[in-house]
């Protein structure tokens, strides 16, 4: 009999309606940007141009701030219950139109449809529902009098989880009574634009949610604007440092959610087959474009060979290809720039002496792709073991004792997440106590819940998103 191949099972993209050009969304409607300049957004899996979006400039940011001021006048007079109504409506609409959002996210960003459909969109809706629920209960959130919103909040989000990061930022900001100016990532603006259309549909008062698309210069103009009371940024540590310096001499709130180089520690008493699955999920989820990715496998030396053999076998079964195919596990790298960065770091890893394993999968002709990659013998001094690669590349280090596992895991400038794999409960607690990371998963990885705060140690940033703690990122406690 012939080998059993899965026939392509393509999610239809006819459900999305993408316009040729988009303006910026201020005063509750789309309008032409002052800049009159556009940037093309392409599908990274085909390099096909999907649309052109406005390249917002300083004047556009000024207009957005004026719009936000008007919006704040209305929004600040509404009770929490009234604000919640809008957020609940948005949550329900996102659920209703989740297939449309999922396809758009996959087209624009390159992530597999099974992830945008089964992970991103359910999480997005859950965040809106969760924070809608807080809007009329803020007095109960912290034992403090006089919780005040910042006012106008500037939010800059990355390209790895475009709509999910929007929901992490917009939902708590609006729930707590702030108004928002959002700058989505240059390469993935389309779901934010669709979200703006939803805001119109639910009748959100003009100026409460403003969207200015653009590139780094647009973000810089937003950060510099004197009437912004708070900046929330998710992205690279480099840009985060720039923003912190830029805002240092102003009375402004700031939260930063930056890079990571998470350790995924596998002890020899772990359930090995499930640990292999968890390690695969930890690094290959969303092509490794995940700030909390488990990019460093920290493996007990006595199980190294067995584990690596199983891991390589499992990696071979990963299906890389058209992200709209429902059977695709790994989609396209988000952009040419990112692909170049991954390629150069991996090449350097080989030159430095790491042992590289890549799967035999065939990569499509067009678009940006990178094979699932595993480095063994990746010494702690190598760049691949220290820098955030932000791609489907896992490095492996071994340890002899639990103490050594902790030393290796904490030997990084980052501290966003970590994973622990052992069947021994006391060892989980012992290890978690000693890890310097904001989120620690035990015997699982990449689990999120709107009620759980997320954020980093060290150069992975400060401030928490999600949960009750996430409200504090948008409230000033005045007692």
């Amino acid at each position, binding site marked *: *009999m*012939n*080998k*059993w*191949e*899965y*026939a392509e*099972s393509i999610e239809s993209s006819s459900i999305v309606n993408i316009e040729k050009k988009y303006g910026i969304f201020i005063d509750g409607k789309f309008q032409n940007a002052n800049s009159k300049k556009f940037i093309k957004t392409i599908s990274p899996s085909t390099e096909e141009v999907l649309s052109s979006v406005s390249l917002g400039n300083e004047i556009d940011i000024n207009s957005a701030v004026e719009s936000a001021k008007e919006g704040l006048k209305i929004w600040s007079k509404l009770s929490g219950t009234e604000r919640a109504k809008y957020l609940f409506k948005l949550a329900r609409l996102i659920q209703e139109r989740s297939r449309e959002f999922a396809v758009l996210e996959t087209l624009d960003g390159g992530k597999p449809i*099974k992830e945008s459909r*089964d992970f991103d969109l359910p999480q997005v809706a859950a965040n809106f529902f969760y924070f809608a629920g807080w809007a009329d209960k803020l007095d109960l959130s912290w034992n403090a009098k006089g919780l005040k919103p910042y006012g106008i909040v500037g939010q800059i989000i990355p390209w790895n989880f475009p709509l999910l990061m929007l929901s992490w930022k917009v939902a708590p900001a609006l729930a707590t009574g702030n108004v928002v100016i959002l700058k989505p990532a240059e390469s993935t603006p389309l779901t934010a634009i669709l979200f703006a259309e939803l805001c119109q549909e639910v009748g959100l008062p003009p100026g409460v949610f403003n969207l200015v698309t653009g590139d780094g210069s647009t973000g810089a103009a937003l950060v510099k604007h004197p009437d912004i009371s708070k900046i929330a940024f998710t992205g690279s540590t480099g840009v985060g440092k720039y923003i912190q310096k830029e805002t240092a001499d102003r009375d402004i709130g700031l939260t930063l959610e930056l890079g990571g180089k998470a350790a995924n520690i596998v002890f020899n*008493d*772990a*359930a*090995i*087959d*499930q*640990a292999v*699955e*968890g390690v695969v999920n930890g690094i290959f989820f969303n092509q490794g474009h995940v700030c909390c990715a488990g990019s460093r496998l920290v493996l007990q030396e006595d199980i190294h060979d067995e584990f690596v*053999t199983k891991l390589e076998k499992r990696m071979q*079964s990963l299906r890389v290809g058209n992200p709209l195919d*429902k*059977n695709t596990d790994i989609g396209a790298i988000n952009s040419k720039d990112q692909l170049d960065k991954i390629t150069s770091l991996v090449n350097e890893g080989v030159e430095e002496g790491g042992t590289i394993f890549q799967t035999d999968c065939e990569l499509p002709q067009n678009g940006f792709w990178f094979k699932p990659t595993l480095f063994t013998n990746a010494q702690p001094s190598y760049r691949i073991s220290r820098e955030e690669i932000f791609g489907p590349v896992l490095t492996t280090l071994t340890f002899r004792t639990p103490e050594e596992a902790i030393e290796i895991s904490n030997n990084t400038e980052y501290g966003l997440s970590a994973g622990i794999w052992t*069947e021994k409960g006391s060892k989980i607690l012992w290890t978690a106590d000693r890890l310097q990371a904001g989120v620690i998963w035990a*015997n*699982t990885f990449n689990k999120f819940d709107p009620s759980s705060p997320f954020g980093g140690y060290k150069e992975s940033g400060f401030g928490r998103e999600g949960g009750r703690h996430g409200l504090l990122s948008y409230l000033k406690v005045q007692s």
Partner: protein
Amino acid sequence: MSLTKEAQNILNWSDTVELIDNLRVDEVGLKERVASLATRSIKKDSKLQALNYIISMCDLTTLEGEDTEGKIGQMTAKAIRPDPSNDEVPSVAAVCVYPALVSKAKKMTQNSNVKVASVSSYFPSGQAPLESKILDTQFAIDEGADEIDIVINRKAFFEGDYRKMYDEIVALKEVCKSVHLKTILEVGELRTYENIKKASLISLAAGSDFIKTSTGKISNGSSREACYLMAKAVWDYKTVTGFKAGIKVAGGIRDSKDAIRYLVIVNEELGSEWLNPDYFRFGASSLVDDVLKQIKKLKTNAYQSSYYFPRG
């Protein structure tokens, strides 16, 4: 570890102990992986290919006190030609009957590729002395069975006497010689995932050619999680010994969609070389009819009633 010389696929007891020492399964991670494999979308040509695989991998089964030669006659005829209106549909792999009906089944299948499997060893409970199990098995083989499906000694397993469980299988393997030995774990009774993996490895080490989920005689028969774990055990055993064992899933698999999900598990965990009747089987009675209907639907777009297909 290496296999003993006497029988080609038996691992000695001390190596077996090492194999089952400290095995751990995480339930949450296991379920998550199995659930994610169930989201594979199998359409068009790959679906038709899968449906034909399933037919060719079926052990068409009847294991009832009321079974008669007449009933076996009907079932074997269906096994040889499941859908008389479509010559492209293959024969099933085997028919599975009680020892007393093996000779009738053998007679009926003599001019076909369909094998005859017999349950033995005091199926389904296994609550009998080893001597009786040996006689039961020897009888089925003497009657002409090509394959023998035995049950593990769950009494010994739950009492912690793994050695006894192992020794019994080794003894029955000796009776079987080259006759294919399938060992039923009864995963619904073992319940925990560690038990399933442990019983899988002991059964393999004792010389089973196949490990099988269930007798089909209890309500919680097969599960995809059990199949996944058994696939992992088969892989681990192959890594250690080089021996390539098969898996039979049986007990409650009634429709094509479910059966295809089992195929996906085997395909992704063991590879496509396991996707043939030598290494993967379905124990089934009603599954075949649903698969035939689905094949017909793919060909003609009509979902036909049961009376279009011969009863077995």
